[in-house]
């Protein structure tokens, strides 16, 4: 237990102390407390030099619409897949969750985006993330909806509710725990992704936070700026940690029902 604690504690400690050190002390990253505390000016430098605010905004502009689309489109599809029984539905479902296993073809997606005029744009990035992570949400949500009794829908139908109304007022509210799970999973992937962002967005003024971190850390070789790298790491991680803490309960129950049936 102690060993396990150390395994998580030491790296986190390193991030925390180094992000508060002046450059001279941070050149050789160690576990000592900073002799001179200057977290403020480090974060300030990361904001000005590393274009942190800009990256933060860019990340939000890409991640939030992607997550929203993944959830809305995924829930609609999952409802149909969970309730209808035919060979065609089964095939469509299998196809839609194939993204869980198959790797995205990152090079040709760039090609396609260029032809569509979406390369290097936010809509292009959103489309790629949505396509990539739809499988996750469809998979989790379909499993979840199958466990919801059809009788609930039938009762509403007796009262003359339309499919859209049933979907909005019965299915969506019941999906809340699994929506929480899918949100954090997709958000986690998209928020920290640097690989696909590199191909689709490249550098430039639409670069997301991870791309900026990559840039800052690549300059590391010449500049020895561990203090900035770790300031970045903290800023990038905090939103995810905050979301997790808020939605913890629901995430756990969502993962439980989705993965281990």
């Amino acid at each position, binding site marked *: 237990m102690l060993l396990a604690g150390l395994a998580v504690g030491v790296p986190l400690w*390193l991030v925390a102390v180094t992000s508060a050190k002046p450059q001279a002390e941070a050149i050789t990253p160690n576990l000592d407390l900073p002799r001179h505390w200057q977290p403020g000016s480090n974060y300030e430098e990361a904001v000005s030099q590393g274009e942190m605010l800009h990256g933060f905004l860019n990340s939000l502009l890409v991640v939030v619409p992607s997550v929203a689309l993944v959830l809305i489109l*995924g829930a609609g599809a999952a409802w149909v897949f969970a309730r209808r029984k035919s060979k065609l539905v089964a095939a469509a479902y299998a196809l839609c969750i194939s993204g869980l*296993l198959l790797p995205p073809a990152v090079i040709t997606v760039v090609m396609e985006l260029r032809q569509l005029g979406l390369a290097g744009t936010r809509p292009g990035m959103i489309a790629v993330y949505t396509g990539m992570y739809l499988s996750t949400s469809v998979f989790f949500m379909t499993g979840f909806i199958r466990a919801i009794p059809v009788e609930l829908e039938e009762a509403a*139908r007796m009262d003359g509710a339309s*499919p859209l109304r049933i979907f909005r007022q019965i299915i969506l509210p019941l999906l809340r725990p699994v929506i929480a799970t899918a949100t954090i999973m997709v958000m986690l992937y998209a928020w920290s992704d640097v690989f696909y962002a590199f191909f689709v967005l490249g550098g430039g003024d639409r670069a997301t936070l991870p791309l900026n*971190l990559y840039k800052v850390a690549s300059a590391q070789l010449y500049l020895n700026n561990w203090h900035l790298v770790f300031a970045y790491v903290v800023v990038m991680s905090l939103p995810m940690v905050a979301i997790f803490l808020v939605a913890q309960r629901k995430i756990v129950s969502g993962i439980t029902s989705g993965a281990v049936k």
Partner: protein
Amino acid sequence: MADTAIRTRTQKPVPAKGRAGKAGRLPRAAVHHPWWFALPAIVVFAAFFLVPNLLNFYYPFTNWSSYHPDIAFTGLDNFTTIAQDGSLLRAIRTTLLYALLAAVFQNGFGLGLALLLEADTRFNRFFRAVFFLPVLISALATGYVFQSLFNQDGAVNGLLGTDIPWLGSTTWTLFLVTVVHGWKWMGLSMLIYLAGLKGIPGEMLEAAKCDGAGPWRTFWSVRWPMLAPALTFNVTTALIGSMNTFDIVQATTGGGPAGSTEVFNIYMFRIFGQGLYAQASAMSLVLFLVVVAVAIPLVIGLRRREQLL
């Protein structure tokens, strides 16, 4: 049973109220769960996931690059190039080894933590959250943290008073990077194993106790078989997910030393940066085929194992 129930329900007449008269000719499912709810998702998924994967069966056979404005068919040229310069086999070997080791560490750490923290106490709940933290930190950031830890003048050497180039060995660096991968994702595995453990009925454990089974015996005879679905999920996602690895490797080693950690995605990243798109795409196709070759037997095998247990 459920199936017949649904079929008999379908045959019942639709209540003749409102629009139902018109809908009566359609099957009920089409009225109650119309396709257009699924259509947007299918369209987006097809356009931005399936189509690129289909295109990936064509472009590797062309000379597409930043140097050719026109794309021409060139047959197997790209594949012979990557086979002859040795990167093809090396990438396959490195990626498979990486995936295997990463899956072992991630599941080993995850299962260990789940068993340690199984009891539902406040102390355990706190530590579950702590061990989930690495999942929330981006893989790129994780990579940089461990790069600074394992740096020759980094924290690990400072702590141990040694001077070992941790990330400088062509044999052991890959191993070390997969440990980092396991570290980053162990929290997720832990959570899923915990869910699996929670699903074991208490009576079963009590019965084992009454029969005089010790903790070790209880684990192998009761807990382990009952964890089969969790294991299936964890092993599949860990193996397949880590074949797609990029960030941790890029941040810790960048594919080095001497290309010994150059997995598929690192290769694509490097070659794409040089403008050799078709060649990168060829590697992407190989990755696709390798994943399919691993995934299908894996899923079938693990499912069968679940049914046997």
